[in-house]
């Protein structure tokens, strides 16, 4: 038996940097350093754990769609222990929305071949959290998403999903799409050996023609949504700050009462 796992990852602007929009209202990637989305590190970690806990022959492929620099995200995942990487890069992808991204990922996943897709719960930039569900819909396989625990055994994926109202145990047959939360387990740090080994691992580059996708299906032209405006939120006007000298609690209660919260 063999198990082919594809982990989808995203290269995102560093949230601690000063993120803003470019003139065409897409995310400006030039002014902020990028990195592997933190929430995707959990996906890589779970894929590696599934691989390590399996008696099967497991291959972990990490996949991203993004500009040239997105290779950095792939290198990080490879240095953590993924076996190989696929980078989908094409100038026509600029401005692609979630629907378009799910199309590109789904075509690439099908071309790569898979039994299991593992994703993070959301990216740390767009934070929509919809791509795993979109992938399941496109691939026509079960979604087993937002898991805080995941196991794969005998062609079945099981996991726990902690929702607002209840905690659920889920089960589906492979092939399936899984997404994991930041509660699934701390992601490992790449070792020096891992970093060196990553340099020798294969990274395939595909463009839209490799995936039989027309330029107008993606990018700003193919997007199903339009951003008409983006305004920087005005800085909050300086609030009142008091130093507690024994009356801080009372003063705060007074403020809350003046605002009708009490």
């Amino acid at each position, binding site marked *: 038996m063999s198990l082919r796992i594809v982990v989808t990852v995203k290269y995102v602007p560093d949230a*601690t940097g000063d993120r803003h929009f470019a003139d065409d209202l897409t995310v400006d990637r030039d002014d902020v350093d990028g990195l592997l989305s933190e929430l995707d590190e959990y996906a890589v970690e779970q894929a590696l754990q599934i691989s390590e806990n399996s008696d099967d022959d497991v291959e972990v492929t990490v996949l991203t769609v993004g500009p040239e620099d997105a290779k950095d995200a792939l290198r990080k995942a490879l240095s953590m222990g993924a076996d190989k990487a696929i980078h989908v890069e094409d100038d026509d992808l600029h401005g692609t929305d979630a629907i378009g991204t799910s199309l590109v990922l789904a075509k690439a996943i099908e071309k790569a071949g898979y039994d299991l897709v593992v994703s993070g719960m959301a990216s740390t930039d767009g934070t929509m959290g919809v791509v795993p569900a979109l992938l399941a819909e496109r691939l026509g396989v079960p979604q087993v998403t937002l898991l805080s625990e995941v196991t794969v055994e005998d062609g079945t994926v099981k996991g726990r999903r902690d929702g607002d109202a209840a*905690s659920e145990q*889920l089960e589906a047959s492979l092939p399936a799409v899984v997404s994991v939360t930041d509660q699934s387990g701390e992601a490992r740090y790449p070792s020096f050996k891992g970093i060196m080994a990553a340099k020798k691992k294969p990274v395939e580059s595909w463009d839209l023609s490799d995936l039989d996708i027309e330029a107008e299906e993606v990018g700003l032209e193919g997007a199903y949504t339009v*951003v008409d405006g983006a305004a920087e939120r005005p800085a909050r006007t300086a609030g009142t700050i008091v*130093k*507690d000298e024994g009356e801080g*609690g*009372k003063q705060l209660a007074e403020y809350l009462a003046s605002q009708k919260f009490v």
Partner: protein
Amino acid sequence: MAEVLVYVDHVDGAVRKPTLELLTLARRVGEPVAVALGNGAGDTAATLAEHGAVKVLTHEAAEYADYLVVPKVDALQAAVEAVSPAAVLVPSSAEGKEIAARLALRIGSGIITDAVDLEAGDEGPVATQSVFAASFTTKSRVSKGTPVITVKPNSAAVEAAPAAGAVEALSVTFSAAATGTKVTARTPRESTGRPELTEAAIVVSGGRGVNGAENFAIIEALADSLGAAVGASRAAVDAGWYPHTNQVGQTGKSVSPQLYIASGISGAIQHRAGMQTSKTIVAINKDAEAPIFELVDYGVVGDLFDVVPALTEEINARKG
């Protein structure tokens, strides 16, 4: 006037507040038609009618509870085909976003998630979103198909607007995919008696400065004096002092209450991402340099172990 579908989030017939907010927003862009699914769906009708639903489409089947997400997508798709709405509105819960996304793909439409406001525009509904840790506000619209939009809790005040609320049975045929992911067990979350974090009008959060699980009792006491939900920063959750379900921030829950009180929270960007759209922000922190003070409407530089109990006592005294 065009009809607008509103997906109803309910627990055994009890409608959750974000759905009532959606009905208010839906009236700005059309006539709300509610879709209630699963056990107790019919029981939602009176509440939905009080808040503006001209029609309530219901369907009860075991599949909604026994399988993940897809049966609800099948039903919503059937509702879209029956009604041909001008838009579909869904509450921005984790499940709501997944339902909305799959529906949008099926009906060839765009999706906008986590709207914080909605208004009618010349080319369909215009959604306001708050992005990049709330440092930017964007206006977006769906340019293809029937707009599918998910809206964050606390984005509108609930308004009563009595309407007919005529109940109609929705005819649903489940797809082959509907039974793909089985829910083999469900453990309801134990009720704390406090409001749901994402829906609460007031949230009181504790962070690293709370310094221990046992000390969260003083945060809870303050929350109870205000009828508030309790939140926690990632540092407090990672330390095991409070459950992850209460984590506010980029990798936890995003909250947007009328009042947010941060105690012993420095205000790292990841935390700010989850609370910065709160209407009024208050912080209590020993460190006058903590970045949270850049956001506050009112801040107290002081020891939370002095300030929080004093505040709680004063609030309780004022309530008499």
